[in-house]
C-alpha cells in the first residue's frame, strides 16, 4: 500500500464522513430532543437530492443557488410534516414511531420511483469542481474539497447555534429535561418544530451534495439508514461534536476497509455497530440520553 493511495482513500472517506454528518445530525437532535425514532430521516436527504436534480437539470439554476434553495425547501417540508403529523406521535410508543416512519420511508421511495424511475440520477457539476486538484503527494477534486469545507462550516455553525445562542441553550435544556424546560416557560413545542425543520434542511443539503459521491436513487433512505443510525448511536444523542466525530470515523473506516480489504468490506461496519452497542451503549461522547 503506497502513501498516495492511502491519502486518496482517506480524503474519500473524510468526504463520505462529512456527508454522513450532514445527513445524520438532524436525526441525532430529534432523537435526543423528542425521543422520536425516525427511520425515515434518510427520506429528507433523498428529497434534497431529487430537488437538486430538478433545480439544476430542469430549472437550470446554478449549483450554489440550487443548494440554498434545497436547504430552505427541505427545511420547510420538514417543518410542515412536523406540525401536521409528527407532533401527534411524540406521546406514542417506540413501536408506533417505527411503524409510522417505516411507512413514511416506503411512501417516499415509492413516490420517487413513480416520479423519477428506479435509475440513478446525475447532475452536472461546475467546472472547477470536477477538475482535479493536486497536492504534494495526492490528487483529489474540487468537489471533494467543497464537501469537506461544507462539513466543517456546518459543524461550526451548528456548534455556535447550539452552544452560543439562547435558542441552543433552550434546546439543550429541553434535551436534558423536557418537563422542567416547559415549566420555566421554554416553548418546547416550537423548539421541536424548528429543530426538526433544521435537521431536515441539513439532511436535504447532505443529500444534494451526495449525488455525485454516493449516488441517488429511490432506495437511498433504506440504503443509508443503518449507517445513519450508527452515527447517532456512536455519537450519543443530541451531541453535535459526538455526531461529527462518529460520522468522520465511520466514513473513513468504511472507505479504508472497502478499498483495502474488499472481502470483508461492509462486514466491518456492522461489526463495529454491534461492538459499539455492547461496549459503549451510550455512544462515544458518553452523554446520557
Amino acid at each position, binding site marked *: 500500500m503506497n502513501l498516495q493511495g492511502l491519502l486518496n482513500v482517506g480524503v474519500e472517506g473524510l468526504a463520505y464522513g462529512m456527508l454522513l454528518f450532514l445527513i445524520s445530525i438532524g436525526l441525532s437532535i430529534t432523537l435526543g430532543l423528542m425521543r422520536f425514532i425516525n427511520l425515515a430521516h434518510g427520506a429528507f436527504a433523498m428529497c434534497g437530492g431529487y430537488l437538486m436534480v430538478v433545480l439544476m437539470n430542469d430549472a437550470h439554476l446554478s449549483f450554489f443557488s440550487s443548494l440554498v434553495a434545497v436547504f430552505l425547501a427541505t427545511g420547510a417540508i420538514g417543518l410542515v410534516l412536523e406540525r401536521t403529523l409528527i407532533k401527534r406521535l411524540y406521546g406514542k410508543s417506540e413501536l408506533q414511531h417505527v411503524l409510522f416512519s417505516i411507512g413514511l420511508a416506503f411512501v417516499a421511495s415509492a413516490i420517487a420511483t413513480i416520479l423519477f424511475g428506479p435509475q440513478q440520477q446525475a447532475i452536472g457539476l461546475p467546472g472547477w469542481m470536477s477538475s482535479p486538484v493536486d497536492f504534494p503527494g495526492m490528487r483529489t477534486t474540487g468537489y471533494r474539497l467543497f464537501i469537506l469545507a461544507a462539513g466543517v462550516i456546518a459543524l461550526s455553525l451548528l456548534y455556535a447555534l447550539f452552544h452560543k445562542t439562547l435558542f441552543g441553550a433552550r434546546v439543550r435544556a429541553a434535551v436534558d429535561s423536557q418537563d422542567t424546560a416547559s415549566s420555566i416557560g421554554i416553548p418546547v413545542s416550537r423548539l421541536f418544530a424548528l429543530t426538526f425543520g433544521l435537521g431536515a434542511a441539513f439532511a436535504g443539503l447532505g443529500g444534494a451534495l451526495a449525488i455525485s459521491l454516493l449516488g441517488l436513487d429511490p432506495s437511498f433512505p433504506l440504503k443509508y439508514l443503518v449507517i445513519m443510525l450508527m452515527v447517532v448511536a456512536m455519537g450519543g444523542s443530541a451531541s453535535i461534536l459526538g455526531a461529527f466525530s462518529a460520522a468522520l470515523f465511520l466514513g473513513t473506516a468504511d472507505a479504508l476497509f472497502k478499498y483495502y480489504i474488499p472481502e470483508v468490506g461492509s462486514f466491518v461496519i456492522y461489526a463495529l*455497530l454491534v461492538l459499539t452497542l455492547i461496549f459503549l451503549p451510550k455512544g462515544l461522547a458518553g452523554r446520557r440520553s
Partner: protein
Amino acid sequence: MNRLKGDIRLALALVLAIAGACYVLFPGYLGLMTTICIVAMFALSYDLLQGYAGILSLGHAIFFGLGAYTVAILGTHGVTEPLLTLAAAMVVAGVVAGVLAPVVVIGNDFNRLLVTLGFGFLFYEAANKAGSWTGGADGLSSFTVSPIAGLFEFDFEGKTAFFYSVAGLVLTYFIVWRITTSPFGSALRGLRENTLRMYAIGAPVTRHRAVAYVMSGAIAGMAGAMLAQTSNFVSLDMLGFGRSADVFIMTALGGTGSIPGVVFGAAAFTWIKDALSSISPKYWELGVGIILMLSVFVLPDGVAGLAKTMRRWRAGRCPSTRSKPTN
C-alpha cells in the same frame, strides 16, 4: 384463563375450517396458501417476542433464514428427511438466538432496534460472502427433500406442502398459545407492561427476555425451514431486511399480542402483497406505506384491537391522543 381456552378452541377450529375451505374452493392457489401459513408461523414467532416480551426487533429474519439455509445445506449433504432437518433448523436457530440474546436483551428499545438491525445486515453479508456454502446471491435450489416420514412425497400440485404447512401453523399456534398462557407468559406480559415493577417483585427480567428470544428464534427457524422444504429453494431475501420489516409490519397491523390477530395480519398482508406486487412493486410500496402511517392513528392496536379502538372513538376520545404507558 377459561376465556383464553375458549378463544383458542374457537380460533383453531376457524383456522382449520378456513384452510379446508380454501383447499376445496381455490385449488389453484395452494402455493400462495402454503406461503401464507408459513409466513403466519413466522409472524407468530415474532409476536411472541414483540407482542408478549416487548422486545422490538428489526432483524428477526436472521432466524427464518438460518432455518431455511440449514435445510438447504443439510439437503445438499445428503440429510433429506424433512422432519429431521426441521428439528435441526430449530436447534440451529435457537442456538444462534441464545448466542445473540445477551447482547439483544440489554439496553433500551432504540439500542435493541440498532443491534437487531446490525445483526440482520451482518448475517446477510455473511451469507452473501460465504458463496460456497450458501450459493451467494444465486441461492440454493439443488437440494433434495425426501417424503415426510418416508410416506408423503412433496408433489407438483403442492398438496403435501399445503397440508404440511397447515400442520406447522397449527403446531406453532398451539406452542405460542401454550407459552403465552403459562406463568412464564404472564411474566413476559408483566415485562411488557411495566419493566420496573417486574424488577421490583424480583423477577429475573434479563433471563425471561433471553428465554423468550431463544424460543421465538427457534420457531422462526422452523418457519424458515418449512419454506425451504416446500419451495425447494433458499435465497438471500429469506434473511434480508425486507423480510424482517415485513414480519414487523404484519404483526403490528394484525395486532401485537393477539394470536388470531397476528395470523389474520400475516394472511392479509401476504395476500395483498402478492396481488399488488403483480401489478407493480412501487404501488405495493406506496400502498403499504400509507396504510402504515394511517394505522398509527386509526388502528393503534391493530385489527385485533378494532373493537377497543371503536369503543374509544364512540366515547369521544380520539385514539391518537392515547398516551403511552409509563415505564
